[in-house]
C-alpha cells in the first residue's frame, strides 16, 4: 500500500492536536486536570479501546471491500455468534468444540445469506443491499434469541480485570484490554497474511478492484462472497468473544456496531489498515475528549465526538483516510 502524502500530514496534525488540545485545556481551565502520566493513561486506554472497535469495524470492511455491501448485520452477527458459542457451551460442549461448531454455523450462515439474499439481489444498488442486510439483522436478532433466550450469559476467559500498573507503577493499564488488543492484533496480522499470501486472499483483493478480473483468477464470484461473509463471521465471533467476556453475552452486544461506524468512515470503508488506524484514532480521540474537553461542556460527549471526529477527517479526505480516491469524470 502506498501512503499518500496528505494522509501523513493529516496523521501528524492529528497526533499533535491530540496532545496539544488536552494540554492547553489543562492550562486554561481549572476544571481540567492535566498531568502527563494521567494523559498517557487515558491515551493508552483509548488506544486499547480503539482496537476493540477495530475488531468490529474489520467485519464491515471485509464485506464492503469484496462485495460493495454495507453490512448493517455485522453487529447482529457479533451477537449471534457469541450467543451460539455460549449457548453450545452451556449445553455441555467443551469450549474448543463449541468454537468449532460456532465456526461451522457461521459458515453455513454465510452460504445461506449468499443463496437467499445476495444472489437474487446481485447488481442492485448499494442502498438496496444495505436494506437487505437490515432484514438479515432483524432475522438474526430474532433467531438468536429464539434459540438461546434473552437472558444474559457469562463468557469468562479468565483474564483478570483488576488494575495493572506499568512503567514503575506510574501508569495504569487494564490487563484485560491488553490481552484483547493482543488478540485483535494477531487477528489483523493473520488477515493481512491471508490476503497477501493465499490464492483466495489474492482473489478477494482482485474482486475489490474489479469483478471481471476476479473471475479471471478462476474463482466464481459466489464462492468469493461466501468466503468473505464467512471470514466476516469469524471476525464477528472473535469480536463477540472479546466483547462478550467484557459485557456478558446479551442483546446489547449488537449495539456495538454503532461504535464501529465512525471508525469505518475515518479509516475508509475499503481499507483493512484503515479500520485499525481508524480505531486507534477514534478510541484515543474520544477518550481524550471525554476526559479533557467534556468537563467544559457537561460531559457524555464520547458518542457524538467520535462521529464529529470522523466527519472532520472526511472534510479533508472525503473517501476516508485510506479509502480509494474518488475520481470524477464526464
Amino acid at each position, binding site marked *: 500500500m502506498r501512503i499518500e502524502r496528505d494522509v501523513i500530514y493529516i496523521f501528524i496534525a492529528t497526533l499533535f492536536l491530540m496532545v496539544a488540545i488536552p494540554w492547553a485545556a489543562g492550562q486554561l481551565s481549572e476544571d481540567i486536570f492535566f498531568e502527563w502520566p494521567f494523559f498517557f493513561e487515558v491515551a493508552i486506554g483509548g488506544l486499547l479501546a480503539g482496537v476493540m472497535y477495530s475488531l468490529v469495524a474489520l467485519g464491515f470492511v471485509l464485506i464492503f471491500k469484496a462485495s460493495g455491501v454495507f453490512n448493517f448485520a455485522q453487529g447482529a452477527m457479533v451477537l449471534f455468534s457469541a450467543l451460539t458459542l455460549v449457548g453450545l457451551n452451556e449445553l455441555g460442549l467443551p469450549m474448543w468444540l463449541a468454537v468449532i461448531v460456532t465456526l461451522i454455523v457461521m459458515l453455513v450462515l454465510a452460504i445461506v445469506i449468499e443463496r437467499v439474499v445476495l444472489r437474487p439481489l446481485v447488481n442492485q444498488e448499494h442502498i438496496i443491499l444495505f436494506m437487505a442486510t437490515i432484514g438479515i439483522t432483524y432475522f438474526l436478532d*430474532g433467531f438468536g434469541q*429464539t434459540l438461546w433466550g434473552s437472558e444474559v450469559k457469562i463468557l469468562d476467559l479468565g483474564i483478570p480485570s483488576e488494575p495493572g500498573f506499568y512503567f514503575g507503577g506510574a501508569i495504569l493499564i487494564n490487563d484485560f484490554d491488553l490481552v484483547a488488543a493482543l488478540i485483535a492484533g494477531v487477528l489483523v496480522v493473520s488477515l493481512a497474511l491471508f490476503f497477501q499470501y493465499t490464492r483466495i486472499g489474492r482473489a478477494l483483493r482482485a474482486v475489490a478492484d474489479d469483478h471481471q478480473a476476479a473471475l479471471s483468477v478462476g474463482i466464481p464470484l459466489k464462492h468469493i462472497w461466501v468466503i468473505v461473509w464467512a471470514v466476516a463471521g469469524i471476525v464477528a465471533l472473535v469480536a463477540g468473544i472479546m466483547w462478550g467476556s467484557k459485557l456478558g453475552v446479551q442483546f446489547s452486544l449488537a449495539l456495538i456496531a454503532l461504535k464501529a461506524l465512525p471508525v469505518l468512515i475515518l479509516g475508509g470503508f475499503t481499507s483493512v489498515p484503515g479500520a485499525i488506524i481508524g480505531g486507534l484514532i477514534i478510541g484515543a480521540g474520544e477518550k481524550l475528549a471525554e476526559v479533557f474537553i467534556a468537563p467544559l461542556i457537561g460531559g*457524555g460527549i464520547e458518542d457524538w465526538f467520535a*462521529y464529529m471526529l*470522523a466527519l472532520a477527517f472526511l472534510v479533508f479526505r472525503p473517501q*476516508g483516510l485510506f479509502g480509494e480516491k474518488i475520481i470524477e469524470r464526464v
Partner: protein
Amino acid sequence: MIYREAGEFKASYREDMAILPIRQDRWFMWALMAVAFLVIPSIASEYWLGTIMLPFLILALAALGLNVLTGYAGQLSLGTGGFMATGAFAAYKLATAFPELHIIVVILLAGLITAGVGILFGIPSLRIKGFYLAVATLASQFFLIWMFNKFGWFTNYSSSGVISAPPMTAFGDFFVTGPHATPVAKYLFALTLVVFFAMMTKNLVRSNIGREWMAVRDMDIAAEIIGIKMLPTKLKAFAYSSFLCGIAGALWAFVHTGSVEPLAFDVNRSFQILFMIIIGGLGSIMGAFLGSAFIVLLPILLTNAPHLFGLNIPVDIISHIEFMVFGALILFFLIVEPHGLARLWQITKEKLRLWPFPY
C-alpha cells in the same frame, strides 16, 4: 377494463401537467381522501386512531421529508431522529415562551428552525457522498440528542429533561394536544397537515427545484455543467427535508405522545424512517406512505396474529418470531421488487391498464 386512459385527451399542457393526469387516478384519490377524512374518523376505534393511524401519519411525514433528501436529492441521511427532536424541542420552547401562539404557528416555526439546523448539518454534503455522508449525518443525530439532553434551557430546566406539550386548540374548543384532545381530533389535525405537506412536496418535486434535486441525485457533475449550483440545491433539499422532519417531530411530541424525552428520537428512529423510504420506494411520495404503513403496521400485526388464531404463545417467543418474520418480509419484498412498494403499486397499475391483454 375500467382503468383505462384511452379516450381521455388533454387539451392543454396544464391538464397534462396535473398531478394525476388519468381520470380514474383522480377519482381514486378523492375516494381515498373521503375515506381518510370522513370514513375512518367515524368508524375506527380509538385504538386504531391513536395507536396506528396517528404514528403512521406522523412517521409518514418524516419519511416524506427524508425521501426528499435521500430519494429525490440523493443525499443519504441518518440524522432524521435528530431533526425530529429539533422540531419537538423548538415547538416546546415556542409554546411555553409564547403561550398565545396558535399551534399551527408553533409547528410551522418549529419546522423553520429545524430547517435552519438542517442547513447547518447539510454543509458537509458538498464534499462527502454516499455511505460516508450517511454515517457523517449520524454526527448530527448524536450531537442534537446530546444537546437537548444536556442543556436545561431546552426543557425549561425540568429535572428529568422531559418536555410536555401544553393543551392547545386548533380552533375554539377543539383540543389537539393535552389530555382533553380526543383521538379523532388528533387524527384529523395530523391528517390535515400531512395531506397539505404531501401536496406541497408533490408540487416541489414536479417543479424546477424537484428536477434539480433529481439531476443532482442521478449525476451531479452533469447537473453542475448544465448550470445547477450544488450548494444551494443540496442545502435546499436539506432545509426542506428537515422542515418536514421538524414538523413531524413537533407533531410526535405534541399530538401523539404529549410528553417525550430526547431518547424518543434516538438513532433507532432515524433508521426506522430510512427503512420506511427504502421499503416504500425511494423518490416517491406514495412510497413514504406505503413504507410508513409497512413499518408501523407489520410489527403490530405480527404481535397480534397469534391471538387472532387463538394461539397462546408466550410474549417473548412472539417477539422473537416477530423479529424473524419482519426481517424475512423485508428481504422478501426487496427481492420481489427492489425499488419498493411504490414501484409495485405502479406496476400493478400498468398491468391494470392493459388488462386483460398481456401487452
